[in-house]
């Protein structure tokens, strides 16, 4: 439900969004302009300037390390989520149990699981695992919802023409489920990034957004803290948009949510 609401919000005219962002930047600028360069609240210009002065030599290795970990976590979490969801596709009676199991996985706080995984498997594995954990629930629930969305009529039609359970799954349920799965995959993107950054924060890793952020805080470089935060947000938005575009290309039959 959240997913569709968010997509609708995003589908609205860009003008409103641009106005909102401009207002936010203006408030930020007005709020920080008079504070002087030593405060913890830099102006937007100072943040942009720090991005350019740090340059690619600083951001390149850190961003690519985090993106690669987030991508691996995203991959594993989605594979696990889809695998467990396909259990429900084959044995529908398991639905409630599997959903509750997913809820439990969702109730494990990353900050509690992270240190444990790090002790057992080390830092990099922990970053990937946390990303996967945060992705798993979203994809599982989205996929199960999608599988239930197949129209009874279509399922019965296949049955009437002598189609077995496998034909029903292949020709109707999977096709009907794909749009919801795509939405879930899209919503899951920020989770993978959050997991990777939390994992990096926990330590045992020498590069990445989390590591750089932690270091920037210790060295009291507020411009860099703000820049890294905003860049992390932009990466997650870009991933969200990319998966959305790919998904729409792959599932042309999905109902379009027209903006009102």
């Amino acid at each position, binding site marked *: *439900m959240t997913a569709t609401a968010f997509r609708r919000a995003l589908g609205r005219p860009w003008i409103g969004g641009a106005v909102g962002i401009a207002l936010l930047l203006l408030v930020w600028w007005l709020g920080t302009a008079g504070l002087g360069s030593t405060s913890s*609240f830099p102006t937007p210009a100072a943040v942009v300037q720090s991005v350019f002065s740090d340059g690619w030599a600083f951001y390149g290795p850190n961003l690519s390390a985090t993106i690669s970990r987030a991508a691996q976590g995203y991959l594993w979490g989605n594979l696990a989520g889809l695998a467990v969801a396909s259990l429900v596709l084959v044995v529908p009676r398991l639905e409630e149990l599997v959903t509750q199991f997913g809820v*439990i996985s969702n109730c494990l706080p990353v900050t509690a699981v992270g240190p444990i995984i790090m002790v057992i498997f080390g830092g990099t594995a922990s970053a990937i695992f946390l990303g996967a954990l945060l992705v798993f629930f979203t994809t599982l629930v989205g996929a199960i919802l999608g599988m239930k969305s197949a129209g009874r009529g279509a399922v019965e039609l296949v049955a009437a023409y002598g189609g077995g359970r496998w034909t029903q799954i292949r020709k109707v349920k999977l096709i009907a489920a794909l749009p919801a799965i795509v939405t879930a995959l899209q919503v899951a993107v920020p989770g993978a990034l959050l997991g990777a950054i939390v994992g990096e924060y926990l330590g045992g890793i020498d590069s990445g957004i989390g590591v750089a952020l932690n270091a920037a805080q210790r060295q009291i470089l507020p411009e860099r803290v703000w820049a890294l*935060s905003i860049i992390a947000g932009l990466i997650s938005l870009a991933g969200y948009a990319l998966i959305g575009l790919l998904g729409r290309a792959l599932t042309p039959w999905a109902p379009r949510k027209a903006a009102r």
Partner: protein
Amino acid sequence: MTAASTAATVLRRLGVTAAALVLAVVLWAVFLEVAGISPLIGKRPWDVFAFFVTDDTAAENRRLIADGLAVTVRDAGIGYLVGLVFAFLLAVLFSMSPALERIVMPTAMVLRSIPLIVLTPLISLIFGIGLGGVTAIVIIVVFLPALANILYGLRSVPAEQHDLVTAYGGNAFTLLRTVSIPTAVPSLLASARVSIPSAVTGAMIGEWLSTGEGLGGIISRASGSFSYDQMWAAAVTVAGVTVLAYAVVSVVDTLVTDRLGETR
């Protein structure tokens, strides 16, 4: 739905939750045994049980975790309630003023996509270290998804109902009171349910990175001092309490939705 069948639904729901919990505990034990993780770091369910019940220091352990839990519940609870109420009020406002929504929602999306952990240092810069900062973090995690969700609920009023109220001379407030808000109750409850894990995660992140109190603080100290018993016990406690809270709210959700005559 009759009282008897409602009770049956509730019992069934709790039964499934219990079964899933048992499954989770079994998987936890099997995973550690099969992967051959040393019992010194990979604590088994029975180790955690011993920590709470049979160890010499069990009473002390229970007190430590209970004190941490009380702080975490407070940290998560305040932000959770404020975030939901605030989301509801703002959703009502937006449902009456689409222009405002168009300006605020995309910005909110951008803010929401900044990973929580990255926001935490900024929030503790702004709100300071303490309950205020942790509450601000929890509000942010709870507020934005709930806003989108409730707004969606307020908007999904069937056109006939909308037209009926308007035809009888109802204004925007009548429409809101008689139709929109009742229609949005299921999505409000759904938000209340799905916000629980995020509120707890938000509180734990805040405690870990800023206040050092509560279960989040206990876990971060325990991992620094290699007290893996404490770390596992705190993790299991916070997960258990979250599952419990989630189950309670989803039962309330089922009951209320049934009374409203919705079928699921």
